[in-house]
């Protein structure tokens, strides 16, 4: 495995060669959404210019071509995550919709009053609210895996929490803390209690080589836009036999086999879950994105991000010592490249504003994880997050801008 040539990678992303407020753009918000390489932009542009038509309908040449490209993209994304069959991959709008699909279709068919769903304190709202809605509607009990002081999940009471549970739904990597959760023991414990398992892999799949079959989960949700693909498309992977047994989610065109006055029958998977015209060109862009990631190599990307994260954690500590708190593990082998931090006495929003003046883009806020923020006892944090196109210079720019911000708000 050869190290990434970040300078060449930066050249692949047109937006990284633009300026922000007169400065070089230092994009450190890939955990919110990543930038797009030319390969993805070109694939989508080419599709619109040369073979755009609706899919699974027309018999003319460009419609056949559009359908073929759309389904080829599905196969690429399925292969990228180690799925055994393309039909196990449902295109949805994003990971949020993927989780909602499971909550509306699978859970409403299989969970009953008194059943428990187990989630964790570090979930994104997308993996909290659908279950709260279900709990309110169906009398489902929602149980929470707590967190240790070192920002890892506290698994000591896991067996008690899973007792009588029908579903374990957890994130593979926290979007706030960067923590990579230990999926093997989590999934094994769920299996021992005959609970199904949903993994929110939205933050994980873009950064770490993934094989969903090795995980042994039942459902995996992720979004294209965090992995160099376009916004507006994501995927739900699930085992074929589970998908086949599930009732459909949205009703409409494409998801039916036949419709009569007295009712309808459903299409085969995956189309059974893809009512209406799908995000055709976005799917093609999604396929181009996983091709791009494959061309760099996921292991090389992970290796690069681990080194960069260590460099950043050290740089923040060396410069600001205890004046700056990092919310997340120190050990880069159990964390991704999202670093949440807070200066003593300075609000995250104000820090981001000063950073923006230097073209440094970081996220500020609760990161759609308010239960976790309450646990941490803070209303908001700043978050810098990395991808394969970031390098040490970006981290140095962040530190320099933070020095300026700290001075600005000094009392």
């Amino acid at each position, binding site marked *: 495995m050869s190290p990434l040539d970040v300078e060449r990678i930066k050249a692949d992303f047109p937006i990284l060669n633009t300026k922000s407020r007169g400065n070089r753009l230092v994009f450190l918000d890939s955990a919110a959404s990543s930038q797009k390489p030319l390969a993805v932009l070109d694939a989508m542009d080419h599709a619109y210019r040369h073979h755009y038509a609706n899919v699974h309908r027309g018999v003319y040449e460009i419609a056949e071509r559009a359908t073929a490209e759309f389904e080829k993209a599905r196969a690429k994304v399925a292969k990228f995550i180690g799925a055994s069959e393309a039909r196990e991959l449902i295109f949805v709008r994003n990971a949020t919709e993927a989780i909602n699909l499971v909550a509306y279709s699978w859970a409403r068919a299989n969970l009953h009053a008194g059943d428990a769903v187990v989630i964790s304190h570090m979930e994104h709202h997308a993996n909290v609210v659908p279950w709260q809605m279900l709990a309110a509607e169906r009398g489902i009990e929602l149980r929470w895996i707590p967190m240790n002081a070192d920002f890892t999940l506290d698994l000591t009471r896991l067996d008690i929490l899973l007792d009588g549970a029908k579903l374990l739904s957890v994130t593979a990597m926290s979007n706030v803390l960067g923590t990579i959760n230990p999926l093997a023991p989590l999934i094994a414990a769920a299996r021992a209690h005959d609970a199904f398992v949903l993994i929110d892999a939205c933050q994980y799949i873009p950064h770490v080589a993934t094989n969903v079959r090795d995980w042994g989960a039942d459902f995996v949700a992720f979004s294209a836009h965090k992995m160099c693909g376009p916004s507006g498309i994501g995927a739900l992977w699930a085992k074929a036999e589970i998908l086949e047994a599930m009732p459909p989610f949205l009703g409409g065109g494409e998801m039916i086999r036949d419709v009569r006055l007295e009712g309808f029958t459903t299409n085969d998977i995956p189309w059974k879950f893809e009512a209406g015209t799908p995000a055709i060109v976005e799917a093609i862009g999604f396929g181009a994105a996983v091709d791009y990631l494959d061309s760099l190599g996921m292991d090389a990307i992970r290796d690069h991000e681990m080194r960069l994260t260590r460099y950043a954690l050290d740089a923040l500590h060396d410069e600001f010592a205890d004046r700056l708190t990092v919310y997340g593990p120190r050990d880069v082998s159990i964390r991704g490249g999202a670093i949440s931090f807070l200066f003593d006495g300075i609000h995250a929003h*104000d820090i981001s504003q000063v950073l923006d003046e230097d073209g440094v883009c970081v996220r500020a806020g609760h990161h759609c994880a308010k239960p976790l923020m309450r646990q941490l006892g803070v209303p908001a944090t700043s978050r810098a997050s990395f991808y394969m196109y970031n390098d040490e210079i970006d981290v140095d720019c962040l530190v320099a801008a933070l020095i300026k911000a700290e001075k600005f708000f000094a009392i």
Partner: protein
Amino acid sequence: MAGLEDLYREIILDHYRSPRNRGELAVPPAHKTEGFNPLCGDEVAVYLDVDSVSGLVVDIKISGQGCSISQASTSMMSDAVKGKSVEEARLLIRAFKALMSIHESKLEGESDGTDLAADLEGVRLGDLEALQGVVKFPVRIKCATLAWNTLQQGLDEIGAELPN
């Protein structure tokens, strides 16, 4: 280009560092209203003590947490409405929103038939005008208006409770 000094004026930083009217009031007789900014997680609680006879905001206290803009705006708001009548407070809310370029329930170019300028004539914003720079940073307008929207909601709730 709008610079940081347009946003973070000295008086704003002063209110941020030494917020006025911090604390809580006993409920009842005071009325508590909470406001949230879903963007950044800021939370504010406004405690209002409105005299039902005189219609004056006798006392106001603020708790909660937020960025410098929301904290400063909250602090300045509490100073501005304390001792004023509910009617004057409502005018201040409208004037402040106008300062933030917020003209409610109107699309660009439309008019709701009332003459905002005439209504607001004579309303003195004073120090609050320091917050005008926020308009150049659209994302931060919600930070500045959080306390004002919460105040408005509180006054509405108190008005609904009072006998006509």
